[in-house]
């Protein structure tokens, strides 16, 4: 064909292609006149044009280009990564390849999914973020989240993630293949919400929620994959992102991304709310809110930012009448589902719920996933939902659904309706007011509770010496939270946030077992506020396991504070509450690290309190229960630091109680088991945390005490001095930290005790004085703290007793004895004064009940000895 010829053919062909086939013959007859070969060329090309269809040269798929280059990476098969052997490739995704792996070591066998992450130019920053995030991600422990088991880099520097291997179907496919009803789809979706909410409470945003990331197992459990991975791979901090907008463009599936993600704006939990909205839209209607099959990425992205999605109910209706337009997606919906019926189901609540989640501005969406899920639950129970406009017919119809029986009686219809309207109007007003308030205040709360309390405090908690800064943060936070709590009354999703914030503040104020400010009274008040909120939430939704766990935690924390203040019976009651909740949670979900840990904590704390009350036998029983749970937990989480820590602590507690009840040798044996775990742990993780260091201190002290009892002087002092070295280091690093100081004083006291036991009384005096010096300061700083006071009283008593021992020693020159008795008396007197204060205000620990009486007797003895000296002095020396 020549160019000239082609021009002629084109002139005829062009208009013909635009015509309906029926019009073509007449046109061609005329246009080609008598030129048969022209007609033949045009005919041939018309057929080609029709055959090509609209799709030809419209889009390219990627498979072909990807194809063989990504041929199963045989290199990896059979290789080992850590304890995992790679068995086969099971998938390939944007982030890299996914393999089936087998953990096959002596401990146990387990199938896992291993993702090898493809990294490009920004490999270093990916790996850095990876290290930073993996701890947080590994802590996500929820039945609907595919658990991250391990992460690291291979020897060649390829980052990898090891996750639970989930065998399941993509959620949308699952719904369709199982032919689920709308209600069943909503219930399945609520599982997903529960997972996302759990992660949000830990301030982890998924950022890439889409059906391919949600699998449903054969038993109908939804599992969310790849939590937080998106952030690791595509952090804005990567320097590679010259232009956030377009970086988003290529990292996301724009069809599920929120407008703010597409625009490259700040991403919050609201982005996940949005993506969940898209998923729900698809699950219920079989359609995407914006996309049609042949849309380009750009078009979808623009639509996400600019176009208001159509009501789900109207999409279904339209689709029902012109099925051809949406042939493929519609075909996936079960045919049996009547479009009209579906449309009716969606009209109203579900339309409003979904559209609320899909609002363009993050702050106009549901303020949390919990609120979103709450509305779905309310819809399922035929209760009024937040997301809707208030109309007479809606309120009335809601009312009728709930009170069908009453309304059926024709006579009362009018009355009931009238009452219903009044009641439900009020409900609606409240709902609206709450929502407005929530929306207005929510960002404030977030900024405060998350940034101030969570982010800043978490980031400095591990840094020694930051107590003062934390005190300031705490004070501001509390003022603000109190005003918010009043405002947010009855707003459930906000309540959860509030409780978390109060707990956090309480931790900073005075949690017993970590760095704290030494404000027990304040901490108790904060924990009680959190507890109150959790209790209300548990009434609203008794099935909510996350909240029940939080409730158990709150009871435990309140119990801790009470124990610290010497209110042992109330503390016991708190631990009992925590125990019954935690036991049932663990029974339902024995592999859960969170729940198991909380139960262990509960037993342990009960054990401590019982010991304080003087009931060593029951205390030992509690610690044995804790040990049993810890032993089970470690089989599920063999390498988890927390599980190891719990096991070691439980061993140590059992050992301690055994030794205390006279079975010293047996106790030492068990104690050494705990210590072995600690040693193994710290070899595994050289950057051992403060908790670990403290653990070491306790362990050395305890070993020192036991060895003293067994008469092994050399080893006893070796251990005690190790403890002292740690104590000094911790206290010096953070002089404001009450806990560190208290630990240091305990070291001095224990050394004093051993010195007394081995007859080094003069050395012991000095040790006790060191302990007293520290404890005076601690007690002055926190006068409500009964534990601190009891410790101080005990040090004075011990100092006094050491003086008595010295004064009674035959080798002391008689001339110096009176002096010793006076010292003894003074110390004992101070001790008695402190014990009496405690007895009078009811904070005297049970185990110390006999202290005042015993000390009074010793004082009497001092008095009588001193009297002898006085008599001797007044009577003339015998010649």
């Amino acid at each position, binding site marked *: 064909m020549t160019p000239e010829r082609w021009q002629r053919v084109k002139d005829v062909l062009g208009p013909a292609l635009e015509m309906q086939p029926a019009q073509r013959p007449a046109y061609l007859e005329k246009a080609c006149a008598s030129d048969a070969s022209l007609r033949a060329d045009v005919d041939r090309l018309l057929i080609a044009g029709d*055959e090509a269809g609209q799709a030809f040269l*419209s889009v390219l798929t990627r498979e072909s280009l990807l194809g063989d280059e990504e041929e199963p990476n045989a290199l990896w098969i059979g290789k080992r990564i850590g304890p995992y052997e790679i068995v086969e490739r099971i998938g390939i995704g944007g982030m890299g390849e996914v393999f089936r792996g087998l953990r096959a070591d002596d401990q146990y066998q387990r199938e896992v999914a291993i993702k090898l992450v493809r990294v490009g130019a920004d490999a270093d920053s990916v790996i850095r973020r990876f290290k930073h995030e993996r701890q947080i991600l590994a802590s996500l422990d929820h039945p609907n989240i595919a658990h991250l088991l391990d992460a690291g880099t291979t020897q060649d520097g390829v980052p990898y993630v090891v996750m639970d291997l989930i065998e399941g179907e993509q959620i949308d496919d699952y719904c369709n293949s199982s032919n689920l009803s709308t209600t069943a789809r909503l219930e399945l979706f609520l599982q997903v919400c529960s997972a996302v909410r759990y992660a949000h409470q830990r301030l982890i945003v998924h950022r890439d929620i889409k059906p391919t990331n949600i699998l449903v197992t054969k038993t109908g459990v939804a599992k969310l994959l790849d939590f937080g991975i998106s952030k690791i791979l595509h952090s804005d901090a990567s320097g590679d992102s010259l232009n956030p907008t377009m970086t988003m463009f290529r990292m996301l599936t724009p069809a599920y991304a929120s407008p703010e993600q597409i625009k490259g704006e700040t991403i919050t939990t609201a982005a996940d709310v949005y993506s969940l909205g898209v998923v729900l839209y698809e699950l219920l209607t079989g359609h995407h809110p914006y996309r049609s099959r042949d849309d380009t990425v750009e078009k979808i992205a623009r639509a996400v930012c600019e176009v208001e999605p159509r009501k789900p109910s109207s999409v279904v209706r339209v689709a029902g009448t012109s099925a051809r337009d949406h042939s493929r997606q519609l075909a996936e919906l079960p045919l049996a589902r009547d479009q009209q019926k579906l449309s009716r189901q969606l009209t109203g609540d579900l339309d409003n719920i979904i559209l609320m989640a899909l609002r363009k501005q993050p702050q106009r969406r549901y303020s949390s996933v919990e609120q979103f899920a709450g509305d779905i639950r309310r819809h399922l129970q035929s209760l009024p939902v937040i997301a809707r406009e208030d109309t007479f017919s809606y309120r009335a119809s809601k009312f009728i659904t709930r009170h069908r029986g009453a309304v059926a009686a024709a006579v009362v219809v009018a009355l009931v309706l009238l009452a219903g309207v009044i009641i439900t109007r009020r409900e609606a007003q409240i709902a609206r007011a709450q929502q407005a308030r929530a929306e207005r205040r929510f960002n404030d709360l977030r900024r405060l509770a998350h940034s101030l309390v969570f982010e800043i405090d978490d980031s400095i908690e591990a840094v020694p010496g930051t107590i003062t800064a934390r005190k300031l943060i705490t004070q501001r936070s509390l003022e603000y939270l109190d005003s918010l709590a009043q405002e947010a009354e009855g707003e459930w999703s906000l309540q959860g946030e509030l409780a978390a914030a109060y707990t956090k503040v309480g931790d900073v104020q005075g949690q017993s077992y970590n760095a704290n400010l030494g404000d027990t009274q304040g901490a108790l008040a904060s924990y009680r506020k959190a507890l109150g909120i959790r209790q209300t939430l548990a009434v609203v939704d008794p099935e909510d396991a996350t909240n029940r766990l939080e409730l158990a935690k709150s009871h435990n924390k309140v119990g801790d504070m009470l124990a610290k203040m010497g209110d042992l019976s109330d503390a016991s009651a708190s631990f009992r509450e925590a125990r019954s909740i935690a036991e049932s949670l663990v029974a339902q979900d024995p592999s859960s690290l969170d729940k198991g840990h909380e139960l262990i904590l509960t037993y342990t704390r009960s054990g401590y309190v019982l010991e304080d009350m003087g009931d060593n036998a029951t205390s030992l029983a509690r610690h044995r229960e804790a040990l049993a749970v810890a032993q089970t937990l470690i089989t599920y989480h063999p390498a988890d630091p927390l599980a190891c820590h719990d096991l070691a602590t439980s061993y140590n507690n059992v050992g301690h109680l055994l030794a205390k009840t006279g079975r010293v040798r047996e106790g030492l044996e068990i104690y050494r088991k705990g210590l072995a775990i600690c040693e193994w742990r710290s070899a595994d993780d050289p950057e051992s945390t403060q908790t670990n260091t403290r653990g070491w201190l306790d362990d050395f002290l305890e070993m020192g005490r036991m060895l003293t009892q067994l008469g092994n002087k050399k080893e006893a002092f070796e251990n005690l001095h190790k403890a002292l070295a740690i104590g000094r280091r911790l206290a010096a690093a953070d002089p404001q930290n009450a806990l560190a100081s208290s630990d240091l004083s305990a070291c001095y006291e224990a050394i004093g005790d051993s010195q007394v036991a081995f007859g080094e009384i003069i050395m012991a005096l000095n040790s006790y004085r060191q302990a007293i010096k520290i404890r005076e300061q601690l007690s002055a700083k926190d006068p409500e703290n009964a534990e601190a006071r009891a410790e101080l009283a005990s040090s004075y008593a011990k100092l006094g007793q050491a003086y008595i021992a010295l004064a009674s020693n035959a080798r002391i020159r008689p001339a110096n004895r009176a002096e010793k008795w006076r010292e003894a008396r003074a110390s004992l007197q101070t001790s008695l004064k402190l014990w009496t204060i405690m007895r009078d205000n009811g904070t005297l620990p049970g185990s110390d009940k006999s202290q005042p009486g015993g000390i009074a007797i010793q004082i009497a003895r001092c008095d009588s000895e001193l009297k002898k000296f006085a008599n001797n002095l007044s009577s003339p020396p015998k010649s």
Partner: protein
Amino acid sequence: MRPVQPAEVTELLRRWSGGDVAARESLVPLVYDELRRLARYYLASQRSDHTLQSTAIVHEAYLRLAGRDNVHWENRSHFFAVAAQLMRRILVDHARKRSAAKRGGAAHLTLLVAEAVEPSSQRELDLVALDDALTALAELDERQSRIIELRFFGGLSIEDTSRLLEISPATVKREWSTARAWLYEEISARNR
């Protein structure tokens, strides 16, 4: 690799718009590298719609190289004109390499048919054959070949193409549809 400054690219585009051919020569390697990098990423990334969006690649390359604020139309269209050619080269090279490495046969680009009537209507487009056919078309009608290149590889809309080539949108449309018919027939004939 030295990071490319948006100002630098903008300046090159401006000079080229003003008739400076050397500016175009300096621009090509920059754009080529960027496109190839992005294409590699796109090819590797998982997308639920499984389509390769050359449009998106070119747009992204433009934004990355010339900056978000550079909306001057002449700059933009000149950029796209270069990018379309380069995308064609990148994708076809890729396809050729693959087919050479594999079985010496033709590489395929799966073609997604929007209104699926039956499964078999998913056809595979031989990208190498398309390249050859486009070259043949250029012999008959260079402008038409260019239109396909701009639209298919550069992702330009009909309006953008019409402005760039200074012809009416109706003409672009007609040229596009007749070229498609011609190419389809040509490729089918080659495969037979």
